[in-house]
Structures are given as structure tokens and as C-alpha cells.
């Protein structure tokens, strides 16, 4: 049994109670940008553990790693042109506090999970993306906000469930899913999660045997979809009817990228690859970008873009962490650098694969910690956890 079930019931009751209050005070997604949401007294009585710096800086400190193995990543073509906009960095936190920052769907705030003094379990903080204010508790629990900003999901470890609350409403839906992480559908009306498949879990070095489950965000109609597979992460198509994941058969074979139709329950392997990694679906659902690795033929390795049905495979000119722009017309990549130096943001056009540097490594040095970055809803900024000081920064690279 997971020890997390041992969380004192009283604490969880407090959390649930706080969550009910929080939803009534949180701006719906259609509202104009608002000041950081405050919480009921129980949650706001304690100050946040970090203080935001109000100033905007143009450079972040960069460490000097000792040895950089070479990489197969190519450098940005010299013929590419730099756009006229002058990028800038804004430091949002101090104290080396923060991991895995994500954008609030309204694009004005950055969310992350951190401790609350006097509270046993961590909470979700929000900090203004422009550095105009300090972090405040956004929600008294680790949580996930729906892409449309309509709802929030959070674990209730005491009761072994995930709870979902619609902003502005008092009622809370319950998903009996062992308090598993859930992925909201784009419209916020459904959630999906991965549950361990019944029966033995033979030891292996590939992902566990799971089944994909889907439920309505109000907790109704929970059902398993598709066959038992090996998978660890899900992504929704914009039609709210299909899910994409990197997976394998139950015996660990047939690795690839799969699409699950949650209505038909059918599972289709759209990409066959030896060891696909980091698959990312374009926001319009038409393309997938992924890293192919350890294929027999060297030319078959690298970042590839394919149509969502696996057709029209094309190789990208760079390797690195990559995200889709909101309009699905381009991708933003942090190419793997070979010189231990700072990172650089580069745009890759989806149609032509042309690359354009978005930042200058010398003028705006920064280092992102281990792929912990996310593109903003407006596609003009990234938020990242800095390798240099474990703080959260926003880098604006377009107006």
C-alpha cells in the first residue's frame, strides 16, 4: 500500500475545505488577467516561502560545467536571421525553490508546487509572469489546471481519489483512481489517467502494464479504454476523443507511438520505432514530433515530424527539447549544445523546417534544467527552471 494513504485525515479535510473556498475566488478563464488568487485564511495566513524580485534582468548566471561530451546535435545554420525583437529574462523567484513551472491557461501567471510553512503537504503557488508581484498560494494542494482554465484536479491521498473542482462552483467531483495524476481534455470536460493493469507486473526495464481510463470531469462514466499496454504519459487530441502516448505491447514489444480512440476503444500504432521518446502532439492535432533513438541505421535517429497518422516522416535539423507553438505552424527548440555554454531558443517552421534563432547565446545567456520549460499560451515566452540557481524565469522572445 502506498504510504501516502497514511496522510492524516484531518489534513486532507482541511485541504478539501480550502479548495472549496479557493474555487470561488479564482477568476474563470474568460476573465481578464487578475492579480494572484488569494485563498481562505487557513491557507493565506502563512507567507509564501520565496519572494519574487521585481526587477527584470537581461541575463541569468551561467555555471561553468566541467566537461561537455560532444553531441550529434547540429548548430543553428549561419544563414538564419535573427528577428529584431530583443529578448529578455525575468526572474520570478528566489531561493532556489522551484521545479516544473507551468503556465496558468490565462498566460498571466506561472504555477509551481512548493512547501507552505506549517502545512504538511505542498501547495500550488502562482507568481505573476511579468515579475510584478511575489508568489502566493494559488491552491492548497498540488494540482493540475485544465487547459481551458475551467477546472482544477488535485489528489486526495487520504481517500485515495482525485478530486476535480470547477472554478466558481462549490461541488467537487471524485475520481476513484488511486489518487493518480490526471490529464484534462482540451475542453476540460474529461480526464484520463493510467491505472495499473490487474495481475502480475513482471519485472522489466520498460514502462509498467497499464490501462487507460477516462471519465467525465464530473466524475461520471469512468471506464477503461483499449487493451493493456505499457505506457507512462498521455496527451489529448484537440477533438477530445483521442489520446496519444508512447507505448509498447504487454510483452514489451512493438514499441511506438499509439493513438487510442476512446469512443471505439481502438488502439493504433501510428509510429513504429525502436525507442521513441518525447512524443509531442501539435495543438491542432495534425502532427507529432518525437525523438527516434537507437535505430539500426544512423539516419533513422533524431527528431522527426510526422502527420498524426504516422505518414510523411521528415527529419528535423536539430536535436533537443522541443515544444509546439500554439498555432501549430512552428516548433520552439532548445538545441543540445556541444560546448557547455548557454542554451539558445530556436524556431523551426513545421512546413519548411527552416530554423530561426530567437535568442543570442552571448547577449542573453541562460541554462534550462533538464527539459523543465514550457511555452506560454501566447507563444511569445517560455517559463523555465534555471539550471544555474533552480529558480523560475520567464524568457520573452517575441512581442
Amino acid at each position, binding site marked *: *500500500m*502506498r*504510504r*501516502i494513504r497514511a496522510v492524516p485525515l484531518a489534513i486532507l479535510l482541511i485541504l478539501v475545505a480550502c479548495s472549496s473556498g479557493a474555487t470561488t475566488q479564482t477568476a474563470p478563464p474568460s476573465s481578464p488577467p487578475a492579480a494572484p488568487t488569494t485563498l481562505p485564511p487557513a491557507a493565506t495566513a502563512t507567507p509564501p516561502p520565496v519572494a519574487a524580485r521585481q526587477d527584470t534582468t537581461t541575463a541569468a548566471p551561467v555555471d561553468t*560545467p*566541467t*566537461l*561537455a*561530451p*560532444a*553531441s*550529434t546535435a547540429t548548430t543553428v545554420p549561419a544563414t538564419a536571421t535573427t528577428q529584431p525583437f530583443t529578448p529578455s529574462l525575468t526572474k520570478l523567484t528566489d531561493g532556489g525553490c522551484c*521545479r*516544473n513551472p507551468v503556465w496558468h491557461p490565462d498566460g498571466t501567471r506561472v504555477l509551481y*508546487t*512548493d*512547501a507552505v510553512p506549517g502545512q504538511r*503537504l*505542498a501547495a500550488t503557488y502562482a507568481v505573476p509572469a511579468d515579475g510584478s508581484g511575489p508568489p502566493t498560494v494559488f491552491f492548497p494542494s*498540488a*494540482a*493540475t489546471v485544465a487547459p481551458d482554465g475551467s477546472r482544477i484536479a488535485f*489528489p486526495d491521498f487520504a481517500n485515495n481519489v482525485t478530486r476535480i473542482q470547477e472554478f466558481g462552483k462549490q461541488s467537487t467531483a471524485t475520481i476513484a483512481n*488511486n489518487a*493518480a*495524476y490526471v490529464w484534462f481534455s482540451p475542453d476540460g470536460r474529461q480526464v484520463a489517467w493510467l*491505472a495499473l493493469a490487474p495481475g*502480475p*507486473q*513482471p*519485472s*522489466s*526495464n*520498460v*514502462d509498467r502494464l*497499464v490501462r487507460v481510463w477516462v471519465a467525465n470531469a464530473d466524475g461520471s462514466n469512468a471506464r477503461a479504454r483499449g487493451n493493456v499496454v505499457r505506457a*507512462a*504519459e498521455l496527451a489529448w487530441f484537440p477533438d477530445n476523443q483521442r489520446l496519444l502516448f508512447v507505448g509498447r505491447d504487454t510483452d514489451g514489444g512493438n514499441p511506438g507511438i499509439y493513438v487510442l480512440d476512446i469512443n471505439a476503444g481502438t488502439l493504433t500504432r501510428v509510429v513504429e520505432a*525502436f*525507442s521513441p*521518446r*518525447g512524443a509531442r502532439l501539435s495543438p491542432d492535432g495534425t502532427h507529432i514530433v518525437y*525523438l527516434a*533513438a*537507437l*535505430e*539500426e541505421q*544512423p539516419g533513422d535517429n*533524431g527528431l522527426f515530424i510526422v502527420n498524426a497518422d504516422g505518414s510523411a516522416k521528415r527529419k528535423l535539423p536539430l*536535436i*533537443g*527539447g*522541443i515544444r509546439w507553438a500554439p498555432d501549430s505552424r512552428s516548433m520552439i527548440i532548445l*538545441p*543540445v549544445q556541444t560546448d557547455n555554454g548557454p542554451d539558445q531558443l530556436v524556431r523551426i517552421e513545421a512546413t519548411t523546417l527552416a530554423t530561426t534563432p530567437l535568442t543570442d547565446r552571448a547577449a542573453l545567456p541562460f541554462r*534550462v534544467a*533538464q*527539459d*523543465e520549460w514550457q511555452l506560454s499560451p501566447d507563444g511569445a515566452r517560455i517559463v523555465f527552471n534555471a539550471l544555474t540557481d*533552480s529558480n523560475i524565469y520567464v524568457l520573452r522572445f517575441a512581442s
Partner: protein
Amino acid sequence: MRKMLRGGRPYLLQLLIVGAVIAATAFVSETAQPVAAQADTPQFRLPFAGPPGPDTWFVSQGYGTTVWAYHNWPDLYSAGQGIHFGVDFATRCGREVLAIGDGTVLGIDGPYGAPPHNLAISHPGGYVSIYGHLRERTTLVRVGQQVKAGDVVAHSGDPYSPSCDRAPHLHLEIRINGVSTTTNPMNLIPADWDRLTLGVGDGGTNFAQNLTDPRQWATLRDQPDIHFGGGIIVNYPTWEPYA
């Protein structure tokens, strides 16, 4: 369901791995026990020649409280207090594995786990490097042989597939305190580790955030040493987008 899987019947392979690792704390194959690690740290290097890349090698799982280890420790890492007590380098079977430092071959297929084959090299200062999931019992070196950093000592393999089509990788450990403890190789081998993952973040390179202490063990380098046979240290609540 999770209760049954985590606390239920043990599997043969798990028992073998756990038993072998625990046994390694009691004796060392074919040679004398190394001394406890000392303050003078030897200069280590990466275990492969050539650059990382999707067609050569890359880090697929870091050392420590990875999300993947958090979910898979009952099957794989219960002997190591529930964390991934080495670094996994994904690479196709047969890649030449290099000694990470000068030393003496301590054991071949000794009681160090990481099947199907392993190699242990003792280094000055009480450090022992262990290379796991090797393709075959290595014949490139013999017990007691002196090796230099960069010498080819073995070939990489796949722990669960003789045909090397599941998860081929090298598992590298650095042990101290007479091989009873592992420590993070990323703090002993100079490298730009954050880029050895090729920019891909997943359950192998992200760490399961402890919601009771969310800043604990948060980065590739800030990870705990573990003592074989010690209690599980990852029994904490987390909420991660990797299952």
C-alpha cells in the same frame, strides 16, 4: 490493486536481484573487500568513447528518486531503498564499455545484480564502479587485472532480452563504504549531465517530488546516497505527470 502489486508475491527475478545486491554487501567476488571511500576522489570519466546522441548513447534514467523508480521500485529497486541507485545509459547492445577510472578488476559476474552479466572495478579512494546488464560475461579483463581509465572492459547488453530489443542500456554504479553504499555518479564524473539526456524529459529524468518536502532531492545531482538493505525512502506522496 497497487497494494497487491507492491506488497504481494515476490517475483523470481526480483528476488534474485535483491538477493544478489544484498549479498554484495557481505562479500566481494573473487578478491578482497575494498576499503571505505576516502576523501581523495579519483578522476572518473564517462563509460563510453565518442559523443552522445540518438544513434550512439544517452542518459535514459538518472540516479536517485526518479519518477520511474518511484513507480517501479518494488520490482527493481527495493534493495536500494527504492531509488535508482545508478545511471542508465541507453545504447544498443555490443557498445564498448570503458573503465571510468584507473583501478583493479574486482569481480566478474559477482553478486552485484544488474543481470545478465556485470563487472566491478576497484578504484583508489575506496570507490568501486559497477557495470551492469552486460551482453556477456566479459573476457576482455580478468579479476585482479589493472586497468586504466578508458580501457575497453566489456560490452553493453539488455537486461531482459537476449535479442536486445527491449531496453538495451548500461547500468553504471559507483559504490563506497565497502560496496554497501551507492553514491551519485553524476557528482563524480565531470560531464554536462543535463544535456546527456538529449533534451528529453520523462519519468527517467524527472524526479518524484516529495509533497511533504518538495525541495528535497530535486535535481540530477542532488540525490541521496543509499545503503543496501536500508529502509525504503520513497514512501511519500507525489503528483507527477508520468505514471
